[in-house]
């Protein structure tokens, strides 16, 4: 897992809360900073890449550790 500036654990929360909370967290971060997002909602495998693509916040890394999905998302320029 690469370095990150902020961690957001949405374990137990279901669609669309992980996306909504990720959006809020990223809005409070500076361009280039990295968010470590932890999700248990299985739909996130498709939803987080879609969110990243549509909002211009690049998805740097995706992994699955002990049944949880871990994403590193970089805050893009507005």
């Amino acid at each position: 897992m690469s370095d990150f500036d902020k961690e957001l654990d949405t374990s137990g929360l279901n669609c669309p809360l992980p996306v909504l909370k990720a959006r809020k967290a990223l809005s409070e971060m500076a361009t280039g900073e990295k968010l470590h997002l932890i999700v248990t909602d299985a739909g996130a495998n498709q939803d987080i890449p879609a969110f990243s693509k549509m909002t211009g916040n690049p998805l740097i890394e995706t992994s699955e550790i002990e049944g949880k999905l871990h994403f590193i998302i970089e805050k893009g320029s507005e």
Partner: protein
Amino acid sequence: MMAKKLAIIASKGTLDGAYPPFLLASTAVALGFEVKIFFTFYGLQLLNKNLNLKVSPLGNPAMPMPVPVPSIVQVIPGLEWFATWMMKRKLKQKGVASVEELRDICVESGVDLIACQMTVDLFDFDEKDFIEGISSGGAATYLEFAGDADVSLYI
């Protein structure tokens, strides 16, 4: 880049009917969309300050029940209450946001909530019962926005 636009007509006032419009609207805003929801007929119930939404198995053979309940039994008072209680408990257990939570996010993030004036008058709804910050409009108001929208849904 111009923001994408999502136009929704919310016509249902049940607990299950409340999820799609608020869930899609709040997510769309998070994805950078401009969103307007036009509430008409029973969908107007979703604008009440105090939401008292219910779900009924009656006339809904697809609703999963713990035990099969024949339609004739579903008219018994209290069964709707039970089905609603069960659904709310399940939503909570599965970490799904409440309708109130999703609606709050919509309001805070600038989703335009529009009450259909004709149905407000038709059912004698009192606008004082509605949440703050909504506007009203008619068919042309919806179509003006929907005409330029990238996604348009009737729910």
